């Protein structure tokens, strides 16, 4: 009985923190990619990203005296980067992961980091090194994958209260692509569906853009922000023919966050309901 109560308490504390869900889901997708989609099992790549993210986070934990539980965020960043970022050399990955984590502590505005860490790391590695890339086609457009990402993603965004951002982004993006592809150009709806069910786009929708730490605090602002990022991503994709457009759109979106938070106020987010003495979260 004692053991049962113990297990139940552990389970409760496990599910209280949405980051645990995120780690399990992202880890599941990585496993799926390696085992089912036949990605190269680049263990060195994964180990480098994990090692760097956790290592840099540890340095900042010791330096700034913040809780060790923030390591979970570093693990999530590492998983996200494993899923998206490809590079020719491990030093490029070290660079990307360092920028991702260090950016969280160094690029701050009123006690809050500005950029989504994984997004910043990926963008920096791709734009600055010339040795990194993102493969938007690596997931394909399978129906099962859509179900998995949408189902797990919905749990995730409901849990952190960011369903508004996902819906605003995906809804706007889907509508714009529909207007262009089906109404304007006259392709069949299956072309639109194929564009929309791209695994990378869905992962982005549910697991990257929804990071509660780098979305606007006000609910209304999040709707507008999600829609704005969709418009940017659409323009980048079809006007400038940029692949992995949502990554660049989110980077710009995050850069605007201090201004948005200044104009539209909202409650700060905490991964776990804060104790009376509120602590800084990373």
């Amino acid at each position, binding site marked *: 009985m004692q053991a049962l109560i113990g297990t139940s308490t552990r389970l409760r504390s496990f599910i209280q923190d949405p980051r645990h869900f995120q780690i399990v889901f992202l880890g*599941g997708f990585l496993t799926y990619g390696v085992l*089912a989609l036949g990605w*190269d099992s680049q263990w060195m790549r994964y180990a480098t990203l994990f090692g760097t993210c956790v290592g840099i986070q540890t340095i900042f934990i010791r330096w700034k005296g913040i809780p060790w539980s923030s390591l979970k965020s570093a693990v999530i960043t590492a998983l996200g980067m494993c899923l998206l970022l490809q590079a*020719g050399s491990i030093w490029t990955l070290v660079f990307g992961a360092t920028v991702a984590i260090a950016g969280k502590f160094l690029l701050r505005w009123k006690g809050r980091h500005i950029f989504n860490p994984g997004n910043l790391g990926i963008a920096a590695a791709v734009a600055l090194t010339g040795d990194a890339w993102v*493969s938007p*086609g690596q997931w394909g457009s*399978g129906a099962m994958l859509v179900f998995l990402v949408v189902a797990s993603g919905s749990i995730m965004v409901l849990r952190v209260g960011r369903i508004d951002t996902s819906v605003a982004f995906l809804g706007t993006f889907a509508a714009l692509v529909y207007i262009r592809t089906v109404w304007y150009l*006259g392709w069949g709806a299956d072309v639109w569906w194929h564009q929309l069910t791209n695994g990378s786009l869905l992962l982005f929708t549910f697991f990257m853009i929804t990071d509660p730490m780098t979305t606007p605090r006000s609910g209304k602002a999040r709707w507008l922000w999600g829609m704005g990022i969709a418009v940017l991503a659409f323009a980048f994709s079809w006007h400038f023919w940029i*692949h992995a457009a949502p990554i660049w759109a989110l980077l710009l979106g995050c850069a605007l966050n201090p201004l948005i938070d200044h104009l539209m106020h909202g409650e700060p987010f905490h991964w776990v309901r804060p104790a009376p003495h509120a602590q800084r979260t990373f």
Partner: protein
Amino acid sequence: MNLRNLLLATLTLSALQSMSFCGFYVAKADATLFNDRSEVILVRDGQRTIITMSNDFKGNVKDFAMVVPVPTVLQQSDIRIVERNVFTALDAYSSPRLVEYWDDNPCQRWEYAESEVQMDMVTSTGKAKVPAMRDANEKDYGVTIEARYAVGEYDILILGAKESNGLKDWLLDNGYKIPNTAHEVLDPYIKSGMKFFVVKVDLQRLQASGYDFLRPIQVRFESEKFMLPIRLGMANSSGVQDMIVYAFTRTGRVECVNYRTVKVPSDKNIPLFAKARFGEFYKDLFAKNWEREGRNAVALEYAWNVTPTWGGMKCDPCVGPPPMPNEFAQAGVDWANDGGGQVFFTRMHVRYGREKFPQDLAFQVTPNTEHFQARYILTHPATGDLTCTAGQDYLEDLFYRRTREMDELYALTGWDLSQERNYMNEVKGKLTPARRNGLEGPYFPSDGPNGNGPNGMLGFVLGLLALLIGAYMLRSRKTASIA
């Protein structure tokens, strides 16, 4: 382990690795194996794209015509004819290859056998036919002839159109037989601002040229779009078609951005009897892999640095001579011959049909310079007297190795191997009765070790998901009851 031992171990390992490179190329599975196929050379340098389209049109050349959407109005200097042998050379160099090795006799060292070179090829058959063009008044159709060129044996028009019905009527009235459903596909290209590159053959110039076949046509243009329009070719086809893309860039591999780019299974050990059927082997392997990947992936068959001045190993084993300066020049790899930088060669094989490939193929150039080749390995057994203890140990190992080869062959091709019992029995026959009895019975894969990998994995992930949803609901209920 001290530093010296560690160093020794590293040296031994690298010696083993370099030894494994010295195989003999024995056969290739070239593009001619695939009947309903097209071949394209795709060169991408910054915003410039150079596309060379091979022509294996087998009908009466006066019936030949081709319509290709292109992003800009091409100038005459942007269009040229190239020699067909450039395709043959690139295909030969990058096609999937079979390599063979020989085991040493552990009883009688340094015995060696001669290689027997054997090719296995199948010829291809012809394609659709479209009648020649008559003059017509383009103004009535909303169709503009943006340019009109005579290049080699071809008459080329660059058409702009306002709407698909006009273009369709223009093409029909000018003698192009296009399917009724084509306007559905033409419309999106017109609205995307694309022009139409329309080609027919001038018979007199063809005769004067002395060629009895149609040479490949090459076009070059500057555009941010890096894609291949495949939808037009599907308008009159309900089945699937094969396309081999030979891509060249300065930086690294080309990959598809709207479909998965997946390596074909490679570096597999297969039984010796597969050698005589290597062409069939690769065809079946490709088909099975295509099914396994959901029939909507692009297969990567080759990726290698082929820079002329690069000193590294260009292939292992080489199936043909590396591309020559003339072939680079023909293919449009302008920077290759003046030492202008790296040349990276990617070969992709797409089997596409309307159902699983709704979008045109869009590509990106990546900095990925990892080498890849589709390579299959034969290992000949040691010959001579194998009655010594080491020889008998070797035969036992050989039995199990052949078991794995049979498994592999079945997994790759799904072939019925029940007629190949002798492959296992000949090893058993050389073992002493005592050793033979210790082996497992005759081996014939039947239901296959490959199964449905992705689906099995899906089950696992779904199960995990269900568990987490359950945990989440449990937690929500508890929270509600506390509230």
